[in-house]
């Protein structure tokens, strides 16, 4: 019998692909020069230290080489990228005041609805600036600060805190694109949770890049006091254009003694996006950082959230899923440094590649000489849906202490014809059988994603039948 080839479909991108008319109040010209950086700094009314920081970062950017080890960045030309586009509105604390076109975009993405239903606060960035920020009154009363970075820098109380932490964990010298970030960053969120304050429902920042040929460089800085608890969700998307867009955000997370932070990301950039993002957490004694990461979009991604386990008994858990379709080369994974004794890390990832998509899992586990009694386990599983797709695994381990327990497991596979036949023999169509197997493969990760993003996962794999997710 001739085999029919039915494929698991692409992510339904309709809602993300709706473009607004580009209507900025101000933008810089393409390219990256000291004049442009100075212009951004002036437009943003930076304090002097920030202006100096930007120019210093630009110098570092010009000195550092392009990364030569990952997916090709040949299609990215900095001379063509507009690094700053200010939307035609100031930041609002009320959706009614946000201009209709921008508000409608966030409505379509379900942000205001999620805010009403299940979030403690929302920040929404459109191109280079945050257009909406709000936090529930009861959370504000707990002393929680959740605002845009620009307001935080100028705040008399929190300005010094920002200055003391901004790009201290991820210095501009780290790599070329984080130096770029230091030079042209704009927007993003600042969160401060005071000691022993537990925020019971999540905060969410959503980043939308609407303009073609533009870059988005938001900075997220989260500082948790001792024993604090927070779940932060980050979402991002953009409509598709024929020119390259660039995202080089930076996330810095400070988790104090005994604090707990869960950081969830759903990345759904369009397939013309170069996503060169840098995220890092510093975890003190007995603290925990949990990363949940879904990477579905972008043309090229380099994304390896890093955790530095600085204090004894600190912990990190990373749960990630990556889905690469046609024209996508997604290089994702995680890094951890065990810098203290009795620290624990667990990295669990899954990837799916189809239609010529490439998924590379890349990780690094480092255990320093002083870090005895550590435990680390790494597990990565890949599923390739056809012969044209690729999946690679590049795990690195650097273990400098003998008294540790380290495990690594990697599995790469394809959908078995026998499994499809088995499901089909129970009346399920071939397409649904494939979808069921892929959904099942992703299920242990999917159930870690924020509930309000369930729809994203449902878009991932088209499900014709009800209740197929286990």
């Amino acid at each position, binding site marked *: 019998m001739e085999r029919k080839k039915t494929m698991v479909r692409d992510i339904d991108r309709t809602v993300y692909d709706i473009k607004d008319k580009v209507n900025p109040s101000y933008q810089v010209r393409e390219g990256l020069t000291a004049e442009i950086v100075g212009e951004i700094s002036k437009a943003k009314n930076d304090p002097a230290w920030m202006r100096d920081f930007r120019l210093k970062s630009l110098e570092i950017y010009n000195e550092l080489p392009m990364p030569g080890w990952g997916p090709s960045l040949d299609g990215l030309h900095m001379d063509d990228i507009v690094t700053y586009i200010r939307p035609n509105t100031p930041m609002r604390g009320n959706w009614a005041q946000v201009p209709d076109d921008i508000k409608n975009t966030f409505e379509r993405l379900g942000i205001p609805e999620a805010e009403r239903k299940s979030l403690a606060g929302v920040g929404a960035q459109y191109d280079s600036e945050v257009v909406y920020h709000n936090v529930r009154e009861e959370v504000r009363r707990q002393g929680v600060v959740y605002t845009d970075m620009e307001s935080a820098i100028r705040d008399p109380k929190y300005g010094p805190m920002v200055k003391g932490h901004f790009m201290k964990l991820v210095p501009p010298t780290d790599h070329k694109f984080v130096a770029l970030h230091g030079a042209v960053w704009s927007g993003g969120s600042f969160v401060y949770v005071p000691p022993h304050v537990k925020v019971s429902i999540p905060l969410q920042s959503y980043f939308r890049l609407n303009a073609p040929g533009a870059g988005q460089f938001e900075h997220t800085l989260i500082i948790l006091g001792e024993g604090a608890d927070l779940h932060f969700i980050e979402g991002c998307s953009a409509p598709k254009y024929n020119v390259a867009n660039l995202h080089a955000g930076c996330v810095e997370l400070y988790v104090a003694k005994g604090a707990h932070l869960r950081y969830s990301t759903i990345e759904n950039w369009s397939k013309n996006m170069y996503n060169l993002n840098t995220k890092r957490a510093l975890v003190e004694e007995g603290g925990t950082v949990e990363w949940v990461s879904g990477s579905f979009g972008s043309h090229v991604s380099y994304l390896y959230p890093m955790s530095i386990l600085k204090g004894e008994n600190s912990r990190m858990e990373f749960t990630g899923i990556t889905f690469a379709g046609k024209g996508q080369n997604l290089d994702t994974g995680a890094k951890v440094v065990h810098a203290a004794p009795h620290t624990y890390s667990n990295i669990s990832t899954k990837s799916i590649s189809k239609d010529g998509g490439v998924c590379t899992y890349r990780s690094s586990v480092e255990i320093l000489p002083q870090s005895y009694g550590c435990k680390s386990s790494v597990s990565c599983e890949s599923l390739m849906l056809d012969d044209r797709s690729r999946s690679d695994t590049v795990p690195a381990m650097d273990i400098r202490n003998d008294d540790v327990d380290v495990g690594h497991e990697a599995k790469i596979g394809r959908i078995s014809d026998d499994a499809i036949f*088995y499901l089909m*023999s129970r009346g399920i169509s071939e397409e*649904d059988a494939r979808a069921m197997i892929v959904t099942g493969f992703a299920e242990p990760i999917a159930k870690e994603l924020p509930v309000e993003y369930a729809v994203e996962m449902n878009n991932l794999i088209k499900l014709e039948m009800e209740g197929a997710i286990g």
Partner: protein
Amino acid sequence: MLLEVKDLKVSVDGAVILDGLNLNVGRGETHVLMGPNGAGKSTLVNTIMGHPAYKVERGSIRFDGKDITHAPANERAKAGLFLSFQSPEEVPGVTLENFMRTSRVAVTGKPVRLFAYKRELKEKMDGLAMDGEYASRYLNVGFSGGEKKKSEILQMLMLNPKLAILDETDSGLDVDAVKIVSQGVEKFKNPENSLLIITHNTKILEFLKVNYVHVLMDGKIVKTGDSGLIDRINESGFQQLAASGAV
């Protein structure tokens, strides 16, 4: 006639396994298929169910009045065919309960009423001495051999096919499990539906009235008889049967 297999020639990866095979199964009948290891029994039932690796080179398969020779497996399931697999696949991330609900909807084309469905599932699992916890476990993942076979019989009971084919459902089971599975099959059987059973064992047949026994050797059915044939084979073996000219 419910199932009519005519002059079937089947190859796998270019090797001919069945050639000139004929088999008829009528409504309400119970048939037993026997034969030495490697004779092609599993090839036959996988071909009847529509596994794409088994290539039909000649002949036809009709089921319930329709030619299904080249129909995809899911269409055969919808027509009322069921195969209990010798080694059922494991499907991670899909629970038994949701899988069977999806399967029920696909086969019947009708939505299920959730509470009635759950009650029915619970009853049938109880009947097979299956722990209710299995409903929320991933399909066959980490199931023992016996649990996998019970899960197959559970699926048969939930889908209620016109013809159920059991491919060595009783092999590798302990005495108690064989008894439970046999009782499940007995419960399924009614005057309307039919069974085609591959077995090396007679335990599973204890509660059933067997109408025909077929011997498959050298790619075709070489002998058909009544249930008495089982005893003769068990006494003297397939080779003896062939050599004696009984064929």
